[in-house]
């Protein structure tokens, strides 16, 4: 494990340094985790809610973290699960059918103040929202976070082979979307 993370975990276990260590962990990983969440839920307010919930779980669970994986892997796992829980809740609240789910997310992408339909980067975002949830996660983790498949398999609890296949399919679908729409 990263030496800094080891030290932070050690400090977290000391009552006098717990809050300092916790704040340091947040500052170290907040942006990476925020963007990982944001790319899944799209809207800033939703991403902020999910991020908050995620870090509250970190506070409660960090003392029992077994250190059998990297700290950031564990954090990504919690963030991913919180994303999926949030999206599941959104589906239950909403009356839209599965086929309209992508349209809902696409509309959220288009509602972003920076959205520019002519830019390839925004077409990429729209294309990503047309992927199934798990495939979206795999693509984002590999493409944006450049996560090795070995780490990704711990985050998503899926075999490396399945992840590779999922990523390849996702990339092909996205390319097809950008070229043909």
């Amino acid at each position, binding site marked *: 494990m990263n030496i800094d993370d080891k030290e932070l975990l050690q400090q977290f276990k000391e009552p006098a340094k717990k809050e300092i260590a916790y704040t340091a962990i*947040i500052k170290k990983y*907040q*942006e990476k985790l*925020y*963007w990982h969440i*944001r*790319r899944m839920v*799209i809207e*800033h307010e939703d991403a*902020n809610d999910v*991020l*908050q919930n995620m*870090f*509250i779980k970190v*506070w409660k669970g960090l003392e029992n973290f077994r250190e059998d994986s990297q700290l950031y892997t564990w954090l990504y796992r919690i963030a991913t699960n919180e994303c999926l829980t949030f999206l599941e809740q959104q589906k239950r609240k909403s009356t839209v059918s599965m086929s309209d789910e992508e349209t809902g997310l696409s509309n959220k992408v288009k509602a*972003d*103040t*920076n959205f520019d339909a002519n*830019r*390839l*980067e*925004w077409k*990429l*975002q729209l294309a990503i929202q047309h992927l199934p949830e798990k495939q979206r996660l795999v693509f984002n983790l*590999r*493409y*944006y976070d*450049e996560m*090795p498949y070995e780490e990704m398999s711990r985050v998503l609890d899926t075999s490396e082979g399945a992840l590779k296949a999922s*990523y*390849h399919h996702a*990339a*092909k679908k*996205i*390319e097809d979307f*950008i*070229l043909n729409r």
Partner: protein
Amino acid sequence: MNKKDTILLELQEISPAVANLNKGDVYTVPFGYFERLPTEILAITKAENLFEGAKERLFTTPNGYFNDLADNILLKVKQSNNSSSDIFDELESVAPLLNSIDKKNYYAIPAGYFQNLAIQFPEKQAAKVIAFNKWKKWTNYVAAAVFAGVLAMGAIKFIDSNSSKSSFEIELSKSSDEEIKQILDNQSSTNYTFVGTVSDEQDGLSIFEGTSEEELQQFLKEQPEMAEKTNKDI
């Protein structure tokens, strides 16, 4: 003619338009910049002098440290680049178009979001204390007791009826056929409507004693069933 005027005349010969421009500076400097500048430069100079003094080598390095340093750094650089290169190559073989797209995050976020991010823990609420209405509590107990009593009474009655029936059957099975016949024979025959039973010939004929033959025949005509029986007996 002074230098300034010489330069001005020279410029007028080259370009009268330029010569006639306002020479004032358009760029601005922070307020008080030049007043502070000397003090700041002095402070920087002093700090450098301190570092100059500390240039003496107080710390030692391992033997051959600098010989291998370049190779070690290069190796680390390659290792850190490996994952990016792998990912680039992977995507190049699957969807090369995506490699040409800028990966920068384009979604809008509020200004200063990460600087001001603070995790808001939910407030612990004191558990709600619900006080029971004592009267309601007692009426509930009474209602439960009444219900239990009704159930118990019903159960007892059910059991009793079952047990009495069975005791009758048990007693009946103990009795012999002779005893049963005797009981039935001793039952009163108040429900019977016929005049009498004819147990033997003598008893049957005695009721007609003192009656003439013609009266008997007339009687038998009126009572056909008696005629049959009488004829049999006779």
